[in-house]
């Protein structure tokens, strides 16, 4: 404790905000999560200086793994310049003083809410996901005591029936984001609310994928090159979103497009949600359209 002349403490915060004891506890949970892919490991989540729901799980994971020589990228909705991404990046710039970047290829740690970058990740990179509800069965069974048993028994019939009911009522699996996946053929997991467009990127990804849920106090992981399968049926195979036009800014036809309403006459444009991908393509050679 620092000097308390006026009754108030005066000590600065530790590197990356969290104290070392807490980081050690979180690292243990991360190691266990990596050892049991897809399994949700409880951890003693801390209050953070940002509110629950703003990415406290991801922030704690990032704080626990961040080293002084890391380069951090933070995105929200795929973009580096959304308020929440800016805010988390400046939290770590302030408390850890690490180098930050908006370029996917330069980053060693990428914290994200709701997206996986379009630029393929490589070995050695770590992707940290902010997770609101880590339990994929939560909407079907609200009780932790029950879902724990279902995971222990690998009893995922509830989810299969739920998806089947979608097919029966809507003629399709009516899930567009937070689309459930089987990790390494054992644990059903939530990919966090990424659009299902990003689900195929989870499969055998060379990067380490870490998931942190602060309010729900769970960490889970998809280690590099782990098999990740989006649930589906033989006659209703998994598909991803498609757009019938390219990005209005960079011409990409392979990226997730955000719809931007441009006027009140029904005008709209579709642009890449991944701002780094879009900008890189625009600054590179004109024929950047094909990779």
């Amino acid at each position: 404790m620092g000097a308390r002349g006026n009754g108030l403490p005066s000590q600065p915060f530790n590197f990356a905000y969290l104290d070392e004891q807490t980081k050690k506890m979180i690292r243990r949970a991360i190691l266990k999560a990596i050892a049991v892919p897809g399994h949700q490991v409880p951890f003693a989540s801390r209050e953070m200086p940002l509110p629950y729901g703003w990415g406290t799980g991801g922030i704690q994971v990032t704080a626990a793994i961040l080293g002084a020589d890391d380069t951090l990228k933070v995105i929200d909705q795929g973009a580096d310049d959304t308020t929440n991404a800016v805010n988390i990046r400046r939290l770590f710039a302030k408390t850890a003083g690490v180098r930050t970047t908006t370029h996917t290829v330069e980053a060693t740690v990428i914290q994200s809410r709701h997206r996986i970058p379009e630029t393929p990740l490589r070995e050695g990179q770590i992707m940290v996901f902010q997770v609101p509800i880590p339990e994929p069965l939560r909407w079907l069974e609200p009780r932790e005591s029950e879902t724990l048993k279902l995971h222990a028994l690998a009893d995922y019939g509830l989810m299969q029936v739920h998806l089947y009911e979608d097919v029966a009522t809507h003629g399709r699996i009516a899930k567009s984001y937070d689309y459930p996946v089987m990790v390494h053929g054992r644990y059903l997991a939530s990919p966090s609310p990424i659009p299902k467009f990003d689900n195929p990127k989870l499969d055998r990804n060379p990067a380490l994928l870490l998931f942190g849920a602060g309010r729900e106090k769970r960490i889970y992981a998809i280690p590099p090159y782990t098999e990740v399968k989006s649930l589906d049926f033989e006659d209703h195979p998994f598909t991803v979103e498609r757009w019938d036009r390219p990005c209005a800014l960079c011409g990409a036809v392979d990226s997730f497009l955000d719809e931007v309403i441009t006027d009140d006459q029904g005008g709209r444009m579709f642009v890449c949600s991944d701002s780094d991908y879009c900008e890189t393509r625009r600054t590179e050679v004109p024929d950047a359209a094909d990779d």
Partner: protein
Amino acid sequence: MYVAVKGGERAIANAERLVAEERRGDPAVPELSLVQIGEQLTLAVDRVMGEGALYDPALAALAIKQARGDLIEAIFLLRAYRTTLPRLGDAQPMDTAAMLMERRISATFKDVPGGQVLGPTFDYTHRLLDFDLAGTAAQAEPVETAAVDAASMIPRVADLLGREGLIEPPPAARSDDVPDLTQAPLGFPTPRALRLQNLARGDEGFLLALGYSTQRGYGSTHPFAGEIRMGTVSVEYVPPELGFAIEIAEITVTECDMVNQFKGSSETPPQFTRGYGLVFGRSERKAMAMALVDRALRARELGEESGAPAQDEEFVLSHSDNVEASGFVQHLKLPHYVDFQSELTMVREMRAEWERAQSRPSTEAAE
């Protein structure tokens, strides 16, 4: 237009400055000091310390000032500070029988050893706006208070009942191996010690509503306010290098012992049971609500579960924390446009399919 949905560092910095400006209000009005908050908004300070789970009136006052009087925001500030503090060890169990009391009442007996002491309570005040307070009130006359014997231990009312075996004994005091909510995540089912920790930090409004619901038949516990006592208690700690207890603090707490009916079972004769509430400061409403909810959460252990919300430990304990609740409810303000785009794409496809199906000449209808 496209830029409008994104926010840069400048926008955030400006918002922060606006908050500071709004906090200060009219610069012609003298600024609030922490001492003023600490001395004159004591119940706000108490609530922030309790739900912020950190006994530090000066920091709580600072949090209230910084949060512009938004107590949940102040609680959040205090928690975010508390979480990084080093943990030195566990204190010895506090002995509230040795409390230096400012207030002590029992609703179950007309008089009790140690007496009934009203203390600084709103209970019998007339809730009439006191227009004299609008100005600077004249110095109040000194108050005549009952002499409380500081030296003597004043037994708890429940302990008096306990001598006859009419009430269940309190759980044995143990200082070793107490679970700690802040060091391990909640797992179900929970031991009572962990539930009490959760309730002590829990939102007063949430517990108040749950406690109230038990009084209206949703998991009735037939409570009597056996005793409410408020005052200062010393906190002792045994440093490993010394091996004996030393006093490290004196804190003000409010304790509530609810006495509840229990009809008995094949193993246990009919006897009264307890619901327990203990909070920092003078947060009596919270202490009482906590005691009601604690007792309701013992329904399974006592074999009286009825499925009422207040008896459901997963429901109660998972939703009591206002820092968690406030964060998650308000995170809906964050952009969700990627997920919404996914939904839009799907709804458009489904509508297109629906329209195709509608326009197809129906062969079945012709039959």
